[in-house]
C-alpha cells in the first residue's frame, strides 16, 4: 500500500491545539485506508483530539540544536553479503492469502470500472 502525503487537513499546524474536525478524521482514515462509519468518525474525533491536545505539551520543550533520534542503535545500515538464500516456498506463501486462483492471488479490479473482478 502506498500512502498519500499530499493534501493535509485544513487545520493549521502552527495553532496551539489543533481543532480536529470530522472532515479531518475522514481524511486521515482515507490516508490510512480505513473506512469508519459516521458514528465511529465522531468517536475517533473525540479521542484523537484529546490525545493531540495532550501531546501538545511537547511544543514547550526547548529543542534548539537537538538532533532527531529515530532508533536507539544509531548505526549506519549494515551491509549484507549479496548471497542467494532460500525463501519460503510458493505454496506456503499462497496458502496465507485469503483468495487465490491456482498460483495467483485474486484482487478486485485495480483501475476504475465497476464490479469486483477476478485475477
Amino acid at each position, binding site marked *: 500500500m502506498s*500512502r498519500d502525503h499530499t493534501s493535509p487537513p485544513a487545520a493549521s499546524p502552527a495553532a496551539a491545539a489543533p481543532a480536529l474536525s470530522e472532515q479531518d478524521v475522514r481524511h486521515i482514515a482515507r490516508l490510512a485506508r*480505513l473506512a469508519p462509519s459516521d458514528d465511529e468518525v465522531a468517536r475517533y474525533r473525540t479521542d484523537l483530539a484529546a*490525545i493531540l491536545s495532550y501531546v501538545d505539551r511537547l511544543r514547550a520543550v526547548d529543542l534548539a540544536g537537538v538532533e532527531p533520534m529515530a532508533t*536507539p542503535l544509531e548505526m549506519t*545500515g549494515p551491509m549484507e553479503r549479496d548471497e542467494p538464500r532460500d525463501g519460503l516456498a510458493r505454496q506456503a506463501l499462497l496458502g496465507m492469502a*485469503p483468495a487465490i486462483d491456482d498460483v495467483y*492471488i485474486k484482487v478486485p479490479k485495480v483501475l476504475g470500472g465497476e464490479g469486483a473482478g477476478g485475477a
Partner: protein
Amino acid sequence: MQSGSQSASSVVRECLARIERDNPKINALTQVFAREALSRAAEIDDAIVRGVPVGPLAGVPIAVKENICTTLGQTTCASRMLANYASPFDATVVERLHAAGAIIIAKANMDEFAMGSSTEHSLFGPTRNPHDLLRVPGGSSGGSAAAVASGLVPVALGSDTGGSIRQPASHCGVVGLKPTYGRVSRWGLVAYASSLDQIGPLARTVEDAALVTRVIAGHDPRDSTSSHALASDLAITPFDGPWSVCVPREGRGEGLSPGVAAAMDEAIARCRAAGATIIDVDLPHAGHAIAAYYLIATAEASSNLARFDGIRYGHRASANGDGPPITDLDMLYRLSRSQGLGREVQKRIMLGTYALSSGYYDAYYQTALKVRRLIKQDYDRALAAGRTAAGGAASGHAVVLMPASPGPAFAIGSKTSDPLAMYLEDVFTVGVNLAGLPAITVPIDTERAGTAALPIGVQIIAGALDERTMLRAADRIASPCPTAAR
C-alpha cells in the same frame, strides 16, 4: 530435569493439568498444544536416557505471546485480522527455544497487536489477574504474566514496546525482563513499532529470566538491528566493585499509590543493605515521555500495519455481508482493515498517520524524535552520575530504580473509556523503550485492596547492553513471587 529428578513428560503433564483446571478462570492462554508438547517431552526424555546432550532449557514448558510466530497453531496478535493466520515459519526466538530443549506448550493472550496496557482488548476476551479476578493483569503481555503468576507455565515470552512486559509483571507479581534494544532478534515478532519492540521473558525468578534471555539473545542475520554482543554476560554474578542506585525524583513524586511508594522505599532499603550507594537524580524530560512515545509508536505502527490489506494474508472483506459492494481495490483495503482491526488499533494507526502526514510531520513526528534524544540523554547522565558516585567510570556500576506502574492492577473496564488514562499506565516504562535500555521488573511487596493482596514490582534500568549490572541488582532485591489465590 537433566539430573533425572523429574521427567519432561511428567512436567508437561502437570502443566497441562493446571492449565485445564485454572486457565478457564483467568483466560491467560489462548491455544494449548497438548499433543505436540507431550510428544516433544517424550523425545527429550528419550535423549536424556540415551545420554544425548540436551539444551539448557530441556523439558521446560514455555508459553509464547500471540504476536510471536510459531508454526504450531495460529499467530493471531489477538486480532480478528489474523484470527486464522498460521505462520509458515518459527520466529528466531522460537527456533532458539527449541534448540535449547524448551517445549512450546501454549500461546498467551495479549491486547490486540500489543496496543494496550490491560489485555482487555483481545479477540479472545480479557485475561484476568490471578490475584484478583475482577482486575486486569496489565498488558499487553497480560496472558504471559498471568500464566506465569498462576503457575500454568514456569516461563513465558512477551514483547515490550512501551512497558508491555514490565507493567504486567508488576501487576501479576512476577519477574519481567526487557532486554536492550537489539539484544534479541525481532524476526518473527509481528511488528508494532520497530524501533521500540523487544522480546523478553516473564518468569518466577531473576535467574530463570536471565537464563531464557541468554538462550534467545544474540545476533540474527535476519534482523539487521540485532546486536553482535555476546549473550554470555546475561548471567547473575556477584558485584565485583562498588555500585550505586539512582532514584529519580520523578519516580517518587505525587501520583503513586501507597503500595507503590512503600515498595520504592523498601527497594531502596534493600539496595542500601546490599551495599549500594543511593543517589537522587533528575530525569527532566520524563514528563514528556508518554507524549513522545505515542507519536513515535503510532507513526511506526501506521507503517507496519499497512501490510494488513486483505490481499496477502489476514481478514479479507467479502461483498456478501450487509456492507456496501466491493467495487475496487481501494475499497477492499479499507473494508478489510476496518472489519479486521479493532478500534484501539485503528485509532493508533490514524494518530500515526496524522503525525506523519504532510504539514504535521515536523510538528509532531520530528519533534517527538528530538524529545526522544533528550530522554535518552537524561538516562545517560543519571547513570554516569551513578557510576561516578560508585567510584568512577572504570570500576563503578549503576542502575536506575523506578516504579513499574503508578499503582497496582486496576479493575477490568475502569480505564477503557478515557483514552489517556490507559496510556498514562505506561508513564514509568516508555522512556526505557525510547532510550533502548534494558530493564527488569521484580516483585517487592503487595498492596491490600479489599480481600486481595495485589502485587507491586519495581523496575531496575541499566545502560545499553549492561544487563549484567541490571541482573545483579535485581537478584539482590527481588522478593519471591507472591502466591496467587486459587
